[in-house]
């Protein structure tokens, strides 16, 4: 992999599998990857020619299409499928280590008796998270993005085909731990939920505004650690509101269960 840009993905594959499945590589079909031996020659500008030369047969095509239009088209397809089955899909985004998986486990534990739950786990590598969810007893699919830093709509489309979530259920998509890139990629979810933990610093919304601008709800996790860290809840919320005045907040500790009831109530309100 290219150390500078991270772009070297000569055999980029995304794997989608369930706990117990053998690893099966799934090639991404929509992208061209002809990196060959990956002998880069990144000499910018040297061969660039601007503008059409006189007498050439160069013609300009007006395209006017969103760069992510293919992702967005697939996301809308996912959204249509989910809405038709009346499935509430939540896209959980955060830095690594904010406690997403523990929140998902505790959410499942509180809901699974009266609301079917399925989970799509996104990580660069490993079945760690899928195995944790599998232990709760709900269906789960792990998407390993390889070197990719985010889930995209096509990965979720493939995961949905494998998962086949039931009607009138909750689908939790746990995105790759990354507070930057997943903000740009619509997956077809009903809501993005951004999670921040009190061990991270209350200025995160100022430092990584895009994710907070895109989210509908912010969970502030690990509140049981508040006495031990310099995290100001009010300061964090006011920073986040400066970025997105529509953002709602819930504070909780997935570990102790404090505040989990309000989160479960929020989910139930979205389902109906």
């Amino acid at each position, binding site marked *: 992999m*290219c150390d*500078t*840009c*991270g*772009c*070297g*993905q000569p055999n980029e594959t995304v794997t989608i599998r369930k706990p117990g499945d053998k690893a099966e590589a799934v090639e991404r079909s*929509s*992208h*061209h990857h*002809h*990196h*060959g031996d990956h002998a*880069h*020659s*990144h000499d*910018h500008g040297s*061969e*660039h*020619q*601007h503008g*059409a030369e006189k007498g*050439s*047969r*160069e*013609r*300009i*095509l*007006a*395209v*006017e*299409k*969103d*760069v*992510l*239009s*293919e*992702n967005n088209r697939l996301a809308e397809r996912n959204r249509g499928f989910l809405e038709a089955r009346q499935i509430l899909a939540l896209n959980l985004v955060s830095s690594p280590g904010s406690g997403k998986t523990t929140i998902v486990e505790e959410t499942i534990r509180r809901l699974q008796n009266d609301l079917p739950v399925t989970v799509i786990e996104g990580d660069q590598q490993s079945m760690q998270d899928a195995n944790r969810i599998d232990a709760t007893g709900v269906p789960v699919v792990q998407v390993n993005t390889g070197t*990719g*830093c*985010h889930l*995209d709509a096509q990965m979720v489309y493939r995961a949905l085909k494998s998962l086949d979530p039931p009607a009138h259920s909750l689908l939790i998509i746990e995105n790759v731990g990354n507070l*930057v*890139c997943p*903000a*740009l*990629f619509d997956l077809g979810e009903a809501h993005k939920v951004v999670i921040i933990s009190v061990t991270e610093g209350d200025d995160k919304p*100022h430092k990584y*505004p*895009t994710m*907070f*601008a895109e989210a509908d709800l912010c969970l502030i996790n690990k509140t049981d650690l508040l006495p031990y860290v310099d995290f100001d809840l009010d300061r964090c919320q006011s920073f986040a*509101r*400066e*970025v*997105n*005045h529509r953002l709602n907040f819930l504070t909780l500790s997935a570990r102790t269960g404090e505040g989990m009831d309000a989160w479960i109530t929020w989910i139930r309100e979205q389902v109906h």
Partner: protein
Amino acid sequence: MHEMSIALSICDLAAAEAHKAGGGRIKEVEVEIGTLAGVMVEALEFCFETAKRSTPLAEANLKIVTVPAAGHCHTCGARFAADHYLVTCPECHSFQVVIEQGKELRVKTISIE
């Protein structure tokens, strides 16, 4: 590093549009990028050089047009330039500001020879 995904998407989209228009060598792709689109232009330019190899864009130049961000105040209705998400309204100092321009990420034109 989502710039690589974006560079690949630009190549896919431009190649498909050129094919629809009868093919040919793509000389330039013009892309509009808002200042709040979440894209690092230098990283995108870097990734584009790799993404375009062995595609109809192999010889193409990437032309980036920057779209400045603009906010709209929902308290007083003012419209103004915004250089980041943390904007207060310059007229009434409200935080009830919606970014209505600056998230663009769009292939505007391609030139084919």
